């Protein structure tokens, strides 16, 4: 039997209902939006990148609890880290959500809760949506 609590764990409920960094960023150097055509959800990720480091990350979302929690956890996880590290993290999170590789739960820390979407194929895109926007933002020229 499936128990929705395996997906909606406490940490995701917390970040989904009371997201951190859910506000416009005053000084934006990089930004991108991502859409989920299945539901019409949309996220805007805004970054301040200085000296090859993500100084600050914030987001604005019209989305579900999973996407919101993922974005909240993401902005906490990437702030202050080198861009190269953040790009690597994008790949690791996306792979753990898609089920293409066994997640290194210890290395992912709080983000490991997102890997539960592996068992919910219809919701994988919800969890990876913020990361797709982050990846695109980092790939852009400075705005």
């Amino acid at each position: 039997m499936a128990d929705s609590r395996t997906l909606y764990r406490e940490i995701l409920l917390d970040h989904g209902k009371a997201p951190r960094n859910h506000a416009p960023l005053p000084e934006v150097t990089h930004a991108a939006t991502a859409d989920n055509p299945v539901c019409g959800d949309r996220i805007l990720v805004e970054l301040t990148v200085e000296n090859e480091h993500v100084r600050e990350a914030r987001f604005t979302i019209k989305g579900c609890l999973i996407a919101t929690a993922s974005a909240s956890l993401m902005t906490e996880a990437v702030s202050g880290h080198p861009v190269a590290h953040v790009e690597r993290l994008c790949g690791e999170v996306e792979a753990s959500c898609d089920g293409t590789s066994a997640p290194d739960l210890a290395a992912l820390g709080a983000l490991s809760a997102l890997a539960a979407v592996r068992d919910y194929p219809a919701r994988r895109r919800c969890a990876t949506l913020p990361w797709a926007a982050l990846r695109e933002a980092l790939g852009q020229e400075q705005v």
Partner: protein
Amino acid sequence: MTTPHDTAFPGPVKPEHRLDIRAVRRQFPALRQLVHGHPLAYLDNAATTHKPMPVLDTLVRHYERDNANVHRGLHTLGVRATEAYEHARTRVAQFLGARDAGEIIFTRGTTEAINLVAQSYGRTHLQPGDEIIVTAMEHHANLLPWRRLCTEVGATLRVVPIDDDGGLRVDEYARFLGGTPRLVAIAHAANALGTVNPVAKMTRLAHAVGAVVLVDGALAAAHTPVDVAALDCDFYTCSAHKLYGPTGIGALYGKAALLAAMPPWQMGGDMVLSVDDTAVRYAEPPQRFEAGTPPIADAIAFASALDWLADLGHDRIVAHERALLAHATEALGAVEGVRLVGTTREKVAVVSFNVEGLHAHDVATVLDDAGVAVRGGDQCAQPLMHALGLPGTVRASFAAYNTVDEIDRLVDAVRHARTLLG
């Protein structure tokens, strides 16, 4: 405002007219399965219905025995396949109330049927300054083809607004008809909300100002009797897969005189009388609009689905669904934090709703974990959701095989979602 209505609905169900739901369910193998350990409660019928055994049998039997191309083979199997395919056309004509089977064009479904009319009729009959009227509750399939047509021919799209309860502003529609409307495209029943539009009245009003009317029957055809002769609409569309039939097949009804004046849409085999080096003579409708090998088995199985529907009694199905709709509306409406979206009196068996503070996707996931299948999201009607100021809804939609027990499980699962996520 109360929406005028012109669709006859049956009154209370007499016991002898009730469906034997157990017998009905036995005909649907897909319903006999567990989802996440729970018996499947399939409440996503506005997306697609399941298919009864007679339909599945027809598909297999066609490939086992009669498989051949249509309208070309001089051999026995070719004759059989052609006869069955053309019989299916007659069956669809009868179902929709068309006078002549030649007024039925097989398409991949409603989407293709509407695109056919937009491209073939629209591009040759509309001019700059003309207006096309649609409603704010249209599925993208009955919106985007017209938007593109407007861009192509320089016409203007007018969108009739809706009330807070999801009913059409018929007064606004009447006002729009005072412009330069050339074509009106309206949902018979809105897929996202279930609202039934007064299409007979709207057609009368449109004809009075010389506009041609297309009615999108994708949702309505399974849930309310259709009679194109009584509606007097110029075009009507439906999809077999929402009518207990296969995917990949649907029908466009068009009045014979209109079809005769329309150029081909797609070019290819089976739609020409003769081809020489410079000239082509096109076949008459409906062949003119069926280029290439059609989905033959699916068309024949579409007719089986209509036979199945008729044997069961379309009016009995409608009455059963009305009872389910009434129960779901009352039971869901009683759940704290649930807001029903689309509450007009004239509705087919669709309940759209939101749970306070919860996103439709999250609710749908918790419901799926309980074995309850619903749609969650924008319902392919993003402009409608914008008009309602909603990111989306959860939609439960019913069919002949659904039960009150399944609706009670839906309601319990919604309560659970509130407890878990609220």
